[in-house]
């Protein structure tokens, strides 16, 4: 057995072995396949009892909508949820991995996870991969120290904010927040504001669309309102079906069997040989 077969890639980090080949192919005109992104509008805000996270539900592959109702609000811990924008696979893998790590940490400490723990695990991982893991996240939760809301950028920098938006629709959503946000919102006011912000992303940004998902986290309690608003219902499917009236009238029904024409050839020589 040659040594090359047993040679495993080094643990951790990406292997950049194929980059030269990819460059060569790109120069020759072969386009790389497009990957699924979550164009996205994701938002979060802190209200008087906790945190509300919101997201749209459209996933795109280039110009095509590949998932009309995907879930962008990911579970991290019973008291912490995370919205993800960017490459769908990256956001899901990263949130899954950190969720597992938080579970083990909870067993070891015997305590509820803190939002800053999730924040630090995520930003360390993203920084280690130097921005190649394209996940932009809005992390929110309520722990022993109170409600927290953070944004995490693909390169690993983070912000702590009272209200935050990320994704291609973030400017549309931020305009709503900047004009209408104030401290000490009630639960219903907060949900309405988040829904408005996501809707402004859905209607004004091509990368966001379909429905609104909302997650409300308070001390000791969480509500995941999947498809809280459906502002884009399908209206073109008719239950009655489509009756097509016959245009040609039937004048006469008469069946005439065709005559059989059979020719009998006088047998000459029988087939021989």
């Amino acid at each position: 057995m040659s040594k090359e077969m047993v040679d495993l890639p080094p643990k951790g980090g990406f292997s950049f072995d194929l980059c030269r080949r990819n460059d060569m192919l790109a120069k020759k005109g072969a386009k790389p396949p497009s990957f699924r992104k979550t164009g996205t509008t994701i938002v979060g805000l802190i209200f008087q009892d906790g945190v509300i996270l919101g997201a749209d539900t459209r996933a795109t592959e280039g110009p095509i909508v590949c998932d009309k109702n995907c879930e962008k609000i990911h579970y991290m811990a019973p008291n912490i949820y995370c919205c993800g924008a960017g490459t769908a696979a990256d956001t899901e893998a990263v949130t899954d991995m950190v969720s597992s790590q938080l579970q083990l940490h909870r067993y070891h400490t015997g305590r509820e996870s803190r939002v800053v723990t999730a924040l630090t695990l995520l930003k360390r991982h993203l920084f280690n991969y130097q921005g190649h893991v394209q996940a932009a996240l809005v992390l929110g939760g309520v722990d022993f120290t109170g409600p927290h809301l953070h944004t995490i950028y693909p390169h690993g920098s983070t912000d702590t904010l009272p209200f935050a938006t990320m994704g291609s629709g973030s400017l549309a959503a931020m305009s709503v927040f900047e004009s209408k946000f104030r401290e000490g919102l009630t639960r219903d006011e907060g949900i309405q504001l988040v829904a408005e912000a996501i809707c402004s992303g859905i209607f004004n940004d091509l990368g966001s669309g379909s429905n609104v998902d909302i997650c409300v986290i308070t001390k000791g309690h969480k509500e995941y309102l999947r498809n809280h608003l459906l502002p884009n219902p399908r209206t073109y499917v008719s239950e009655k079906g489509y009756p097509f009236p016959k245009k040609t009238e039937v004048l006469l029904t008469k069946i005439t069997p065709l005559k059989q024409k059979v020719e009998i050839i006088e047998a000459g020589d029988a087939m021989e040989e």
Partner: protein
Amino acid sequence: MGDSQYSFSLTTFSPSGKLVQIEHALTAVGSGQTSLGIKAKDGVVIATEKKLPSILVDETSVQKIQCLTPNIGVVYSGMGPDFRVLVRKSRKQAEQYHKLYKEPIPVTQLVRETAAVMQEFTQSGGVRPFGVSLLVAGFDDNGPQLYQVDPSGSYFSWKASAMGKNVSNAKTFLEKRYTDDMELEDAVHTAILTLKEGFEGQISGKNIEIGIIGTDKKFRVLTPAEIDDYLAEVE
């Protein structure tokens, strides 16, 4: 003894076909504090003595019964530090399984993987076997289950079992008292009575630990107050 020449090296069989180090490990388990488990028809209970070396030790900081997943718990007899290491490894394996298959790990799988870890340490160089026997209690789609894992890495499913100092008395007591249609409450009372049999001193909620799992599939350790209630019922 002819065996003693082979008793220092773990990875050498003795002429009688035994691995003497594992026998010694079982002796270490046998001198540990008594622990037992009982499988009822609607749940499992595991219990152990919690005798602390001195009255100055803060008993709230010691927890011998640990949770491996929300529906699987474990108790041990033998060396506490070895138990901690096994619990850490088992939790990680359970979490890895969950991450890959997105379902809670079945009890038999977790027991098998923990036993595999314990067996590894009986066949490697420079390590010693774990000085603990585990009683794993869980409730999954196959119903309530109780497994005992030994330092050699062998595991068995039990209806009721005991380990540690008073094992023969405890097992005799359990054999007499066990019935197949026991309910969880009866099982808790039987567990307390079994512990009481060999208990030196006054039994109370502070010097025993009990963990139960019922049809709700959530493993939990009883608080000292709850244990005191059960003790009052038993008397």
